[in-house]
């Protein structure tokens, strides 16, 4: 990578963070900076760009160790506030999935179900400091004789509690519409028939992976803002697919890269971890993530200055195509257009609404920027990068 005019390392940037001379901008601010200064000067001046996203991320959950009871127990069924946590691991460990519903939830028996309380809500209650009811059942062994253990516990009572999310931060996502003749209730919200409304769900120009589209700086060990505390990228997320169609600027034109993340739940906040109920669909968790992107060279300056005009989302029919796993995108629409609240589709006006909070995403990017400026948050250099795709470079840098 010797072809760049600006070449910085993680170590150099971390030194600047420690001596207070680091220059950090949010991904929103970087758009204007690169336009004004040009990519080379911008890469020279700016050291880190912070990103943010706050949306529903179903592939999330908490890994909890609830400590030994007296006498000891080897739990094989665990419920927290009536929500089952997977207990097929060591004696007092369990994994509480964000999408797990309560045992007595009526689900979709009376359609559409409301799914008022599930795994995501338990996680929110825990980080809010509320007490939860833990119920563990066991078959009993010589070393773990207890058959049943119940306790009211707050987060501080758990010896270990991690947020451990297999797939977060999708790099771009569908814009969902419904071409069928009836209202549908999906994980992309409520969609009216005949393509009356469209829902989209990423923070666009603020979104972490849209600002580092080839994962040059993000990988195992990247230190991030996670749920209001500090976390780490621990690898690519499930369904990570770098080989999605890309536009000329390298930006993916559909769901592509994903992140797997981990962090200590005890330092997180309910402001950035929120249980969610999706009518007719199920329970989930809103997760706040912010990833710092080091501006190692002018190409990273170009990548991080991507704006909503340059990012396209595929329009997908959730009435028939998506559920059946058939069909192709019906078209593409820019995030700049989606953010206006209206788009044209087949000659008709369609109302567009976001599902991820842009204002909270910006709040996260600003918090992360301030953490880095304060010298308390150093960049984590990836020990391993994520699977990527080839890129021939930007014309204007050649």
């Amino acid at each position, binding site marked *: 990578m010797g072809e760049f005019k600006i070449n910085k390392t993680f170590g150099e940037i971390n030194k600047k963070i420690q001596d207070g001379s680091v220059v950090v901008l949010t991904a929103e601010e970087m758009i204007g900076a690169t336009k004004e200064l040009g990519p080379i000067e911008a890469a020279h001046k700016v050291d880190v760009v912070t990103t943010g996203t706050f949306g529903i991320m179903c592939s999330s959950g908490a890994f909890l160790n609830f400590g030994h009871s007296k006498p000891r127990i080897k739990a094989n069924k665990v419920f927290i506030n009536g929500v089952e946590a997977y207990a097929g691991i060591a004696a007092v460990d369990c994994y509480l999935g964000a999408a797990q519903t309560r045992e007595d939830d009526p689900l979709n028996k009376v359609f559409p179900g409301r799914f008022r309380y599930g795994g995501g809500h338990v996680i929110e209650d825990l980080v809010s400091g509320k007490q939860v009811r833990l119920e563990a059942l066991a078959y009993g062994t010589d070393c773990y004789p207890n058959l049943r253990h119940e306790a009211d516990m707050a987060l501080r009572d758990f010896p270990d509690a991690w947020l451990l999310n297999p797939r977060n931060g999708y790099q771009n996502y569908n814009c969902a519409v419904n071409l069928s003749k009836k209202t549908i209730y999906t994980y992309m919200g409520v969609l009216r028939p005949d393509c009356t409304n469209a829902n989209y769900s990423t923070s666009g120009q603020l979104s972490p992976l849209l600002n580092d589209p080839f994962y040059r700086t993000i990988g195992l060990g990247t230190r991030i803002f996670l749920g209001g505390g500090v976390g780490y990228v621990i690898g690519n997320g499930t369904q990570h697919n770098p080989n999605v169609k890309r536009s000329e600027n390298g930006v993916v034109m559909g769901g592509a890269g994903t992140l797997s993340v981990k962090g200590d739940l005890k330092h997180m906040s309910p402001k950035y971890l929120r249980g969610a*109920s999706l009518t007719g669909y199920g329970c989930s968790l809103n997760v706040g993530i912010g990833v710092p992107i080091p501006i190692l060279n002018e190409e990273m300056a170009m990548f991080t200055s991507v704006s909503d005009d340059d990012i396209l989302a595929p329009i997908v029919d959730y009435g028939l195509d998506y559920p059946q796993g058939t069909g192709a995108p019906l078209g593409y629409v820019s995030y700049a257009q989606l953010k206006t609240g209206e788009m044209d589709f087949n000659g008709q006006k369609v109302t567009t609404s*976001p599902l991820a909070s842009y204002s909270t995403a910006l709040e996260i990017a600003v918090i992360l920027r301030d953490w880095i400026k304060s010298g308390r948050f150093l960049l984590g250099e990836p020990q391993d990068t994520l699977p990527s795709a080839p890129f021939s470079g930007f014309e204007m840098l050649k």
Partner: protein
Amino acid sequence: MTSKNVLLIFKSNIMYKPVIYRLARDFELVFNILEAKILPRKEGRILLELRGSEDIIAEGIRFLEQNRVVVEPLSDKVWREDEKCVNCGACTGLCPTDALSMKRPEMTVSFDVEKCVACGMCGLVCPFGAMRDITLFDPFAEGRSDSK
């Protein structure tokens, strides 16, 4: 000219009086029935938009109350729990009256209760239960907890 949305509750003893017609004839108020439900022999509920000058609207409401109609401003019945709202915007595409709308460029969600017709869509779609899921036509709906 101003407009106000009010919930009218007609107890069974006055259910068959033509009071709404007199709002137009005696007060020259423009009324628009947004939703109505009559439970036979129990009570009737009407969600009414009143349009006119502020004074005349107040007079009209006084007239209704004199005729034993229970009048409640909609803003006491429908509200957003602001601390639960994350400003995602999921509700804005389904709100039929733009009572819930995106404020741009901040991309925060504004709620203008005066435009609300209590259709209940936002209650159905909000993932965080920020819009109190009441329908005005449910006699068991709870009121605002901080009101007397």
